[in-house]
C-alpha cells in the first residue's frame, strides 16, 4: 500500500517537472507561422470557450441592440479590428501569421454571445494576439462592437454599406 501511494504521488511531481524542463530548456518551438497541431486546438479552444463562459455568465447586454448600435459597432470594427480579424465582404483568407490563428470573423462568425464577446474585447485573451481593449473603448463602444460582431456573418447589404469608412 505504501509503495502504491508513493507511486501515486510521483507523477504529480514528475510531470510538472518534465513540462517545466521542456520549456525552460527551449525545446518548445517558437515560430508562429505554422498551424497549431490538432490536439492542442482540441484541448485549448474548449478551455478558452469554457473560461469565457464562466467569466461572462453574470453579464448581460444593457438593452436590445438597436440597428444604430450595430452600425456604430461595425464602424469601430472597420477601424480597429479588421486588420487582424478580416474585412466584411472580402474573400476568406486564413491567418498564417499568428499562433493560434486569428479567427476570421466575417467568414466563421462566432459562437459567443454578446456579453461573452464584450468580455473578450475588454480583457483580451492571454497567450494569443488578442490584447485587452478595455482602456481604449467606452462601455457603450464595447457593447456596440459586441452587437456587431455577434451578427458579423449575416450582415445585410445595407449594413455592409453603412459601416464603410466615409471617403474624404
Amino acid at each position: 500500500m505504501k509503495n502504491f501511494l508513493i507511486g501515486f504521488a510521483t507523477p504529480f511531481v514528475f510531470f510538472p517537472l518534465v513540462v517545466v524542463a521542456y520549456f525552460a530548456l527551449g525545446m518548445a518551438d517558437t515560430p508562429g507561422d505554422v498551424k497549431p497541431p490538432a490536439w492542442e486546438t482540441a484541448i485549448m479552444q474548449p478551455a478558452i470557450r469554457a473560461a469565457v463562459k464562466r467569466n461572462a455568465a453574470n453579464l448581460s447586454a444593457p438593452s436590445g441592440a438597436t440597428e444604430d448600435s450595430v452600425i456604430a459597432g461595425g464602424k469601430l470594427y472597420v477601424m480597429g479590428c479588421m486588420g487582424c480579424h478580416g474585412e466584411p465582404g472580402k474573400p476568406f483568407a486564413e491567418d498564417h501569421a499568428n499562433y493560434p490563428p486569428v479567427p476570421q470573423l466575417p467568414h466563421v462568425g462566432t459562437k459567443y454571445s454578446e456579453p461573452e464577446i464584450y468580455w473578450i474585447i475588454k480583457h483580451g485573451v492571454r497567450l494569443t494576439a488578442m490584447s485587452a481593449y478595455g482602456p481604449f473603448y467606452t462601455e457603450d463602444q464595447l457593447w456596440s462592437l459586441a452587437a456587431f460582431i455577434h451578427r458579423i456573418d449575416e450582415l445585410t447589404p445595407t449594413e455592409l454599406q453603412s459601416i464603410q469608412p466615409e471617403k474624404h
Partner: protein
Amino acid sequence: MKTFLKGFAVGTLILFLLALLFLETGWLDIRADVIPSPRISRFLDIATHASVRRHAAELQSPLPESSDSEEVLIAGGKLYLNDCVGCHGEPTKPSKFGATFYPPVPQLAQTPTRYSEAQIVWIARHGVRRSGMGAEGTSYSDPDYWRLAAFIRRLTQLPPHVLEAAKAPPVSSTGSSQVQSDEKK
C-alpha cells in the same frame, strides 16, 4: 516495485484528468489585462529566450555594409518607426497599446533586447507562438529584415543623429496603420 508502478499509472491518469477538468470547466484565467504572478511571467520569458536560442538559425547578414553603418541604421529606423512603434514603443515613449497584451509586448527602447541580430530577424520573420508577435513573413525583403534588426539591436545606444535622420522626411502614415489607429485613441 509492481505496486509502485500501479500507483504511478493511477496517479498519472488522475493528474491528467484533473488538468483536463480544470481546463475544460473554464477555471483557467485567460484575461490579458490581469498579469499573472512574476514567477510565471519570468518562466515564460526564460522559455521563449531558450527556444529562440535553440531554434534560430545563426545566419550572416547579407548586407555589404556593417550593421554599425549609419546608412543601415537609418534605413532600419525608418522601418521601425513606420511599422513597429505601435506595439513596441517609440524611441522615447513606451506604447500603451503594447501593454494590453499578455505576454506584454517588449518595449524595445526601454529594455534593450538580448537577442542577436540573426535572432531578431528570425523572430520578426516567423513570429512568436502564443504572443502578439505575428510572423511578418514576406512583408520585408531579406536585407530590410537585417536593417531592421541592426536598428533594434542598437535602439538604446544609437549614434546621436541617426534617430533624427530616420524621422525625416516625415514618415508616411499609409503603412500597416491598424495598430497605430488604435494607439491614437
